[in-house]
């Protein structure tokens, strides 16, 4: 194996987490190498991006599943089988990672989230937490994380207005909220009449031209309606390629190597000594020694890399001991409702990934759960992300899925329907976890990651409650007919739901119950930082990227501290 000269820091994966850390460390003089398994991406790639088939249905920007996928089973009694085709979630690839194909909805988690266990017990008593639910505090409070949220929002230029039911902000959003469409105004006015607290959704799509503190200038969103699953041809949607990566490169301290697939963290004693990767263009295996290793790939590969490298203590669901793979969580996206309007047409073909109105009256612990059979909740939103014609075929329940009647109804309602949807939180359970699959391998012969997960009674109750709320709002908005999705079946990997997978390398205040500390530094290997939504002990009722960004800035600070003094940084 060819051994390269040692560098200060090697980063695995150059998406939001890797890009933020690269820019912060490189600005401070550390020599950083970023290893990215995929290819280079730039704004010029997106001349032909308004192509729903290629990007949304053939997954142009996503990981090639023929080379690597995940396996899935609902519980430990059945055999896990590979996800052979995309469905439930989409895995990014290439420079910028999932930060390229995201929508740009940029929230902060609630103060409740970070202290969920103590706050739940404090208000409802120990018995409120059902047997097997493994919620725990994050080892950090909202107030401690606030400065890092602020930093991320200023870097990305988030457009928004104050959320009346959230934690305190140290400063306003850097840009004003996005424009309001008629549908958004209807939702806003209706929710206010219902004594709820709606606000315009915080957006990384840029309501106006913006220059960030790093001197990166970007133009305003054009509301073209092609965000999620697409790259932005304007550079208006904040993504790592148009924000943090050029800043890191400009220092001269950051080198990106694309097509470099990291397969092992190399370690000796209780420290990493570098990484082994395959140059996928030649097949050559290369060793990159480094003083500090940052693992910043997607949730699944963060966990897989640690397990394949035998670094950290693997989680054992039988005993509840061990930490790598623990507390895998997802999201409950089925609590929603669609309203059909006979006499109103909306320009819903136009939109932006993070254009919408949201309310948090039923999120976190903002409402009383004493008589409810679940904890936490969801943000409820009306979004206008741009309805594209292959996907947009709304028909009233009971309409056949093909033939004359399907055609008539789907055409009629294409511009005459609005959806109000809840993004439900996902609580961890002892028997929901990630480990290595015993059978299926990737293109290199390394084991795939295996997901063991299903929806619980908590999730079914949550979906039912939320769908009812969404239904009420749509009725008040004047829809002539409202169909609500109240029933949450078993977790099914086939229909798309959400690319908000979390956990597996969770943060906390003790090595007994968590894998990383509040700087995302591994308890078991002090020069390894594992960054991303893999650090979430549970998933909240919001999009996760704002919190991933905040944690990345905090991790960068921890790495800088560590590079000077060594030892645990907490």
């Amino acid at each position: 194996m060819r051994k390269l000269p040692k560098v200060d820091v090697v980063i695995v994966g150059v998406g939001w987490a890797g890009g933020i850390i690269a820019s912060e460390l490189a600005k401070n003089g550390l020599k950083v190498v970023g290893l990215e398994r995929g290819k280079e991406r730039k704004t010029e790639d997106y001349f032909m991006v308004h192509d729903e088939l290629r990007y949304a249905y053939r997954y142009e920007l996503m990981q090639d599943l023929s080379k690597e996928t995940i396996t899935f089973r609902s519980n430990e009694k059945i055999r896990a089988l590979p996800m052979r085709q995309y469905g439930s979630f989409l895995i990014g690839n290439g420079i910028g990672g999932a930060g390229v194909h995201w929508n740009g909805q940029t929230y902060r988690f609630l103060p409740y989230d970070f202290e969920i266990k103590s706050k739940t017990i404090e208000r409802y008593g120990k018995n409120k937490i059902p047997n097997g639910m493994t919620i725990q505090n994050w080892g950090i409070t909202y107030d401690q994380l606030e400065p890092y949220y602020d930093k991320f929002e200023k870097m990305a230029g988030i457009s928004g207005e104050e959320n009346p039911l959230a934690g305190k902000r140290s400063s306003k959003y850097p840009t004003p909220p996005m424009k309001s469409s008629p549908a958004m105004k209807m939702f806003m006015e209706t929710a206010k009449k219902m004594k709820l607290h709606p606000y315009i959704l915080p957006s990384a799509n840029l309501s106006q031209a913006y220059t960030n503190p790093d001197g990166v200038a970007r133009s305003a969103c054009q509301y073209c309606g092609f965000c999620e699953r697409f790259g932005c041809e304007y550079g208006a949607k904040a993504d790592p390629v148009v924000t943090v990566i050029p800043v890191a490169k400009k220092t001269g301290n950051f080198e990106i190597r694309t097509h470099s697939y990291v397969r092992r963290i190399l370690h000796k004693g209780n420290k990493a000594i570098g990484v082994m990767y395959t140059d996928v263009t030649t097949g050559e295996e290369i060793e990159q020694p480094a003083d500090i290793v940052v693992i910043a790939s997607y949730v699944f590969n963060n966990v897989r890399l640690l397990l394949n490298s035998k670094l950290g203590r693997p989680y054992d669901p039988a005993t509840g001991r061990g930490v790598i793979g623990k507390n895998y969580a997802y999201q409950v996206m089925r609590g929603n409702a669609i309203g059909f309007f006979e006499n109103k047409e909306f320009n819903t073909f136009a939109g932006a990934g993070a254009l919408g109105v949201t309310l948090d009256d039923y999120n976190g612990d903002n409402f009383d759960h004493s008589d409810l059979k679940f904890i936490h909740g969801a943000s409820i939103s009306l979004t206008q992300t741009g309805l594209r014609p292959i996907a947009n075929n709304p028909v009233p329940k009971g309409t056949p899925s093909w033939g004359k009647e399907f055609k008539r109804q789907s055409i009629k309602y294409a511009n005459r329907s609005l959806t109000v949807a809840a993004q439900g939180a996902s609580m961890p359970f002892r028997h929901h976890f990630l480990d290595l699959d015993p059978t299926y391998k990737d293109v290199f012969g390394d084991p795939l990651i295996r997901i063991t997960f299903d929806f619980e009674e908590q999730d079914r109750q949550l979906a039912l409650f939320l769908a009812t709320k969404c239904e009420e709002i749509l009725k008040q908005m004047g829809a002539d007919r409202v169909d609500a999705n109240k029933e949450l079946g078993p977790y099914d990997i086939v229909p798309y739901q959400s690319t908000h997978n979390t956990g597996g390398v969770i943060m906390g205040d003790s090595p007994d119950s968590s894998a990383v500390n509040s700087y995302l530094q591994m308890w078991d290997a002090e020069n390894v930082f594992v960054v991303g939504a893999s650090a979430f002990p549970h998933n909240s009722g919001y999009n996760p990227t704002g919190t991933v960004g905040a944690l990345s800035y905090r991790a960068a600070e921890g790495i800088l501290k560590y590079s000077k003094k060594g030892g645990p940084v907490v």
Partner: protein
Amino acid sequence: MSPQDDTKGNENVSRRNFLKKSGYALGGLLVGGVVGSLLTVGQRQAAPSPAPQTQSTTDYNQALMYFRPDQFRMVEAATERIFPADENGPGAKDLGVAYFIDHQLAGDWGFNARDYMRSPFFKGETVQGYQGRLNRREIFDIALQEMQNYSQRKYQKNFADLTEEQQDEVLRAFEKDEIKLTTISPSGFFRILRNATIEGVYADPLYGGNKNMGGWKLKNYPGNQMAYTNIIEKDEFVKMPPKSLKDHLHT
């Protein structure tokens, strides 16, 4: 001034404003952006557009890449039942959906090139998704033969020669798994066919379906426009002639 003209006017203003503000720069250095190209697109729109192609002209870009002609006729008939011509406008046949599916099968999609197709194969739970070893080409070959066999058994005719009601009955037998096959899942095939039909109606015309953007016109979908900044707040529904990716391509 019609609402349409009004929109166009606003859009030009928007494009000019946009060009002034566009691009993202780092310390004065432009690190990317498609400003130059947008300018060209803007200018190009001012030029007269070529006369639309009519049905009577032979389209030398259109022939079969994968299907045999008999398979093509079956797919054309089946997709027309899934998305029939009616008073709203053209159906799958006139929109070229069977060509779309033929062309898709000829490439990556037909070979499941980006799907995980490694062994071992086991029958899974429904919630675990497709676990078969056949690729889409093989599934279509088998399914079309089985559709033909079923039509012959039941009506003594080829599928393409059945009445519309009989064709619907055959399709429903596949959709509801009323027909028993050991090789493929009839309902699984029906789902692929149904979803590919919708794709062929509404995907950009460059893929061979959605002929002359006829699918988009059914829904008043404007195709891909560069900007909706000036209509996003508008109360009234804005109709505009659709644009395809071809309109964004300049040499």
